[in-house]
């Protein structure tokens, strides 16, 4: 246990770096997946290409992608950009499908009503479809967050420091405590992401908690119009 206390500063630093490597691609990936998913729904012809194509990206082994990045980007082998870009690709791969499903969860009658009120396409997407898509989107995002936290740990194999370092290092040194720190750190980090996304969802969907009282109970009286 003293090992943990002695290395607390390092552990904190690695955890912060791990959080950034997983979190920033999550945000950027969401920003990319939203328009892609929206396009896929708007253009049924190319939808299989967008959804299938992005899904295929997720099947690339992470280590291969990390190693491939410097070749594609022309970056240095230990540059953090490699990890950021690779993680963004994975996020997009997971989220495009979620965005399509989330937009599909918006009742068609609601979307039609928005059009009938005079919303243009983009206005409708931002003001009506996106807010209503939040619950489905949030569950997709939580899966992506956990996935990101675990994939990032692989980056230690190419020497980029984060919590995964304790897994590889502890394994090489046959030091279970260090491996344990790596595992617990990753689990806690994933939990933090999960809670943060749940919190954001909660804040964005007061309407989903309103429940259906059906106008009974404490509802004010319906008054006859005069």
């Amino acid at each position, binding site marked *: 246990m003293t090992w943990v206390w002695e290395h607390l500063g390092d552990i904190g630093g690695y955890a912060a770096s791990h959080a950034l490597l997983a979190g920033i691609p999550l945000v950027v990936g969401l920003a990319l997946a939203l328009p892609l998913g929206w396009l896929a729904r708007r253009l049924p012809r190319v939808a299989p290409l967008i959804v299938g194509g992005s899904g295929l990206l997720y099947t690339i082994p992470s280590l291969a992608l990390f190693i491939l990045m410097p070749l594609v980007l022309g970056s240095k082998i230990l540059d953090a950009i490699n990890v950021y870009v690779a993680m963004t690709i994975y996020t997009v791969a997971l989220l495009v499908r979620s965005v399509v499903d989330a937009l599909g969860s918006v009742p068609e*009658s*609601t979307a*039609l*009503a*928005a*059009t*009938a*009120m*005079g*919303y*243009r396409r983009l*206005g409708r997407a931002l003001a*009506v479809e996106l*807010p*209503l898509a939040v619950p489905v989107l949030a569950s997709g995002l939580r899966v992506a967050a956990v996935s990101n936290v675990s994939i990032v740990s692989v980056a230690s194999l190419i020497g980029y420091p984060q919590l995964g370092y304790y897994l590889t290092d502890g394994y090489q040194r046959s030091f279970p405590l260090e491996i344990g720190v790596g595992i617990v750190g990753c689990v806690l980090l994933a939990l933090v992401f999960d809670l943060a996304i749940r919190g954001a969802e909660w804040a964005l*969907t*007061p*309407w989903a908690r*309103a*429940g*259906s*009282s*059906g*106008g*009974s109970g404490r*509802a*004010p*009286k*319906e*008054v*006859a*119009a005069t």
Partner: protein
Amino acid sequence: MIRFEGVTKRYAGAPGHAPSVAVDDLTLEAPTGQITVLVGPSGCGKTTTLRMVNRMITPTSGSIWLDGRDTAALDEAELRRGIGYVIQHAGLFPHRTVLDNVATVPRLLGWDTAKARRRAAEMLELVGLEAAYGGRYPSQLSGGQQQRVGVARALAADPPVMLMDEPFSAVDPVVREQLQDEFLRLQRELGKTILFVTHDIDEAIKLGDQVAVLRVGGRLAQLDTPARLLADPVDDFVADFVGRDRGYRALGFRGAPPLALRDEPTVRLGAGVGAARAATTDRWLLVLDDAGAPVGWVEPDRLTGPIGPEHLHRGGTVARVDASYRAVLDAALSAPSGRGVLVDESGRFAGTVTANRVVAAMSRPAGASQVDPAGGEDGAGTGADGIRETAGGDPAGTAT
């Protein structure tokens, strides 16, 4: 005014099938300030017709004109902001409060939030919802309340034209009737140009200034006033669709002329047995409340104490003196005494009339004197006040 000129909508059929025609060469005018109802069986193209007006659906051929402007030439979104649209289940935005739902179109038109919300609050009041509902979400309202919000939302920017697609179909019959009555009251106040879709012929007849009956395949079968539709269906399809009891229902659109009213003996609620028996020799005696409104019939012979609410026979309906033949006849037929109770505009008792008298008035040829000669079969004088002739008439009769 909404004008359809030779409008056809064809949908490409499933592979190997012929294209299907949803609306076939429709030419129709929905006059300014009136309710035009499109009615017909499911799948006859009503929704398609409606949605072509605000260009949610593009006609295959033909054109639609709104107050002299070809809708095809207008910007879609701007066109829609100028047309109120109400659908079944209201189609409210679940993520917005009731107030913000209603403020939708004013906001789209660029009003600032405060002004749009003030307007929305006025609209809620107009459709009979308490201000407290403004802060709720649609899921917290009953179906009938949601439908009111849907109407309020459509009216918020005061559009001259309203499209309504089965707006009252999804609520229970009691609420539906209430919504229909309030809708008619609102329309009398607002005078919108309304295209209203329903599959319910009774609703069409109740609400329409004119009714367009469509048959499957999207062809216009008949366009007429409700009274004409009942009196003279053009073919078997329309006759079948309009349904039974056409003759009786048509009476709802004929205002009864001033009828000679019987001078009916009456007694006040709470009067004693003696007073009741002294008032009449007939089996039945009409009871009024302190304001002079009829509350029911009693049998003086069976009274054992002062007349209380529990003694009242309440089966009879009450009609206004200016109501339709249908309402007046119903009052006569439903009264245990056989004498229908008529009231003036303020609900005070005006006199009674027998079914014979109503039928006699009804069967007089048009153009004959509308004034009943004194000394008819029941030998009564005319009710002195509150009797006047009105066209149209109000089919509503209220039970006492």
